[in-house]
């Protein structure tokens, strides 16, 4: 019997595992991950991690930036906890060996970031997530007792009587389906960017954890808030980090004009100014792109309209010192050199602000079930996450969830395995074996996936409209049914990736429906959620989280939950004017 079973070996999952191992070495901890932990998507985070360290910066300012950046939809108690614990977490990472970039006197260096009033973003060149994840992974190797289930895919949470009892998972390598009983489960499965066609997210970001919890009755929160990052490479969707703008990069349209000045984001200065122009928040920058496109001031390419990111004036040595990965990516994937060429960029789906509804310790409404990281919604990101807040978030709340789960496991020890658990496990095994046995002769998984992605992009992109959303509700429900009959070519038990892709498709369809339902329900514009038919923010009705439950017929049913406001009453979001 596992005491704390962590689903996900990314930053949040590994941080949780270490937290449990450190608080109580007698507990049995396991990490189940569908890819080897160091392949998790945390690895591709580039820009940095925010935490107040420097003199002249205060916790309150970080809180304010986060809350105003989130258009006042953040729970302020959660933000305060997050901001005050973030520095400790980043120092802890340093003590574990993370190669943070340094000042010449040996202190950790910080850089500016979008929407932040102070320089507080720690970075390891522009491979912050890579170094963070590898440091965490290598540190976990120290804890001999943590059990790893590498390349196991969790298909179901076993929940009985409002309490979690473990998971059902497939060992991808052998195809064996096993029930892993556990006193507590921590979901740390990351985001769901793959519900969109054009995304910075890796293939594995399919929202599995959200779907797992949602199917068992846990609500999802704020699913309409999807972040578009303003600077993705066309075609691949590879991210050009915000650090490129923080180091002084400019966004220009086809006339070479720094167009952000036309969208209430301040006026251009030669060197970057905090909370202004290119260092405005992502939602506003991505929205500005859409307006430029409408004005015909973007450049058409085979992969859609683009604007340019101009780094040429930074010079080769600064680019190599601060953002070498940007140069590496541009060279290999775009065949250009940012030191001499303009980089074509366009907004790209990047981050899910919403997720499994949890309290400040990662607890969900299902007893024993916790969630942390991008898969959870605590919520500190509100209607728009600030760049570099997510990495500290996975650490702070990964740790909190781990500790809370450990406490829960201790106080609920000695519980026997229920027969209901075995029955659920057996049902799930039969279902999976049926699918693998050549079940389904309908459409191809890839076709259904593309239909879903396009439906979602059309309905729940940067701008949304009620009528399109309404149509999307039906399209997605229909796709959900067709996916039950999807064609599976692969009947092998060994490393059957098609079986996994189908499970991921089911999860994504589940998530996509909640995104559309929440977007339809929120009749206002706030942060990353912009309705063309309700253009104003409406604090009267919608200063509240969306909470979506799965109805017995599988359709999402949306309600509202008040936002926790402590010290920062809702105000106007001001960028570039001070």
């Amino acid at each position, binding site marked *: 019997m596992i005491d704390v079973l962590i689903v996900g070996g990314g930053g949040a999952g590994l941080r949780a595992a270490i937290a449990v191992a450190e608080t109580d070495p007698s507990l049995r901890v396991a990490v189940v991950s569908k*890819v*080897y932990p*160091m*392949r*998790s*998507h945390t*690895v*591709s985070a580039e820009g940095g991690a925010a935490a107040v360290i420097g003199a002249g910066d205060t916790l309150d300012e970080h809180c304010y930036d986060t809350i105003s950046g989130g258009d006042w939809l953040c729970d302020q108690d959660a933000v305060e906890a997050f901001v005050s614990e973030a*520095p*400790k977490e980043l*120092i802890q990472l*340093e*003590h*574990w*060996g993370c*190669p*943070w*970039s*340094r*000042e*010449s*006197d*040996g*202190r*950790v260096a910080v850089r500016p970031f979008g929407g932040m009033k102070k320089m507080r973003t720690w970075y390891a060149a522009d*491979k912050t997530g890579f170094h963070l994840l*590898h440091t965490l992974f*290598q*540190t976990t*190797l*120290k804890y001999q007792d943590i059990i790893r289930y*590498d390349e196991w895919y969790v298909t179901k949470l076993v929940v009985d009587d409002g309490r979690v009892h473990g998971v059902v998972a497939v060992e991808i390598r052998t195809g064996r389906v096993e029930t892993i009983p556990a006193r507590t489960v921590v979901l740390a499965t990351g985001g769901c960017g793959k519900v969109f*066609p054009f995304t910075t997210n*890796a*293939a594995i970001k399919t929202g599995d954890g959200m779907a797992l919890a949602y199917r068992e009755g846990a609500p999802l929160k704020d699913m309409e808030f999807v972040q578009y990052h303003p600077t993705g490479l066309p*075609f*691949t*969707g*590879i*991210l050009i980090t915000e650090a490129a703008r923080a180091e002084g990069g400019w966004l220009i349209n086809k006339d070479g004009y720094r167009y952000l000045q036309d969208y209430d984001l301040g006026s251009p200065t030669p060197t970057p100014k905090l909370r202004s122009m290119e260092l405005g928040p992502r939602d506003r920058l991505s929205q500005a792109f859409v307006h430029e496109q409408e004005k015909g001031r973007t450049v058409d390419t085979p*992969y859609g309209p683009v604007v340019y990111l101009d780094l040429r004036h930074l010079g080769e040595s600064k680019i190599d010192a601060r953002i070498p990965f940007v140069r*590496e*990516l541009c060279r*290999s*994937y775009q065949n250009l050199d940012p030191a001499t060429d303009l980089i074509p960029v366009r907004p790209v789906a990047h981050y899910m602000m919403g997720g499994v509804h949890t309290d400040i310790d990662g607890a969900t409404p299902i007893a024993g079930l916790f969630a942390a990281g991008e898969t959870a919604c605590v919520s500190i990101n509100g209607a728009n996450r600030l760049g570099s807040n997510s990495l500290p978030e996975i650490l702070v709340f990964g740790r909190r969830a781990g500790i809370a789960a450990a406490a829960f496991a201790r106080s609920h020890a000695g519980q026997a395995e229920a027969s209901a658990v075995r029955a659920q496990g057996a049902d799930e095994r039969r279902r999976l074996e049926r699918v693998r046995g050549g079940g389904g002769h309908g459409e*191809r*998984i*890839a076709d259904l996936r*593309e239909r879903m*992605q*396009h439906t979602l992009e059309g309905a729940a992109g940067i701008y949304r409209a009620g009528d399109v959303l309404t149509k999307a509700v039906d399209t997605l429900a229909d796709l959900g049914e067709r996916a039950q009959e999807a064609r599976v*070519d*692969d*009947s*092998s038990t*060994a*490393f*059957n*990736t*098609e079986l996994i892709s189908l499970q991921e498709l089911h999860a994504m369809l589940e998530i996509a429906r909640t995104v559309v339902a929440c977007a339809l329900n929120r009749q206002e514009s706030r942060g990353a959620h912009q309705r063309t038919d309700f253009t104003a923010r409406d604090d009267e009705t919608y200063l509240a989280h969306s909470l979506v439950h799965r109805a017995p017929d599988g359709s999402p049913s949306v309600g509202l939950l008040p936002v926790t406001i402590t010290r920062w009453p809702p105000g106007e979001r001001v960028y570039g004017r001070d």
Partner: protein
Amino acid sequence: MTDTTEAVRRASTRTIRVEVSRYRPGEDAEPVFQEYEVPLMADWAVLDGLNYIKDRLDGSLSFRWSCRMGVCGSCGMNVNGEPRLTCGTFLSEYGEGPVRIEPLKGFPVIRDLVVDIDDFLAKLSSVRPWLIREGEEPPLTAEYAQTPEQLEAYKQYSMCINCLLCYSACPVYVLDPDFLGPAAIALAQRYNLDSRDMGDRFDVLNLEDSVWGCTFVGECTSACPKHVDPAEAIQRYKLTAALRSVLPWSRR
């Protein structure tokens, strides 16, 4: 890749032949090549070609991938005889084709293009790849100081994405799977050379199957997509270990 049908609709009619090694345990005695015609798109990486096959032609093809930006390390395969990251190798590099895709050499094949890397993970942990400190853990109020020069001393060795191309390129490893191998040794050096580390990995590195197994073929370094230069890491440790052996009082 964003959208295959879109892209393919815009495509020219040119295609390229891709020969993929297929192996299903229990069914095939040994791998066989299967051929597919894939649209030859200017921007397509080899991985995009494989995804095209999986999505459109044959859903039963198995391979690993994730980030599609050269940083997760999961898509290493043997492309026309060379170990490559398939997300960073472009079909257009192979002109008229054909392109031959095989699993990474030197590892047991689990299925099609998927190899067993558990042995590498065990090796990775064996070198104690974490920061070793002595004494009390200091409070979480201040970082350990480290100057940019001290960072530079090990930075390169910290860039390894565990893609295993170096193992596949190293004839010593391919002949002798017990060899600790380039990436694991480079990682040990990453910590050895970190000014914050107080540990000592002499016991695991100064072994016949460890640094002394390397005959300095140097192909690990040529294959490495992240410029880690494991060959250098190993030779440097040979010198360290040799000096330490003759001068027992000299540590590091």
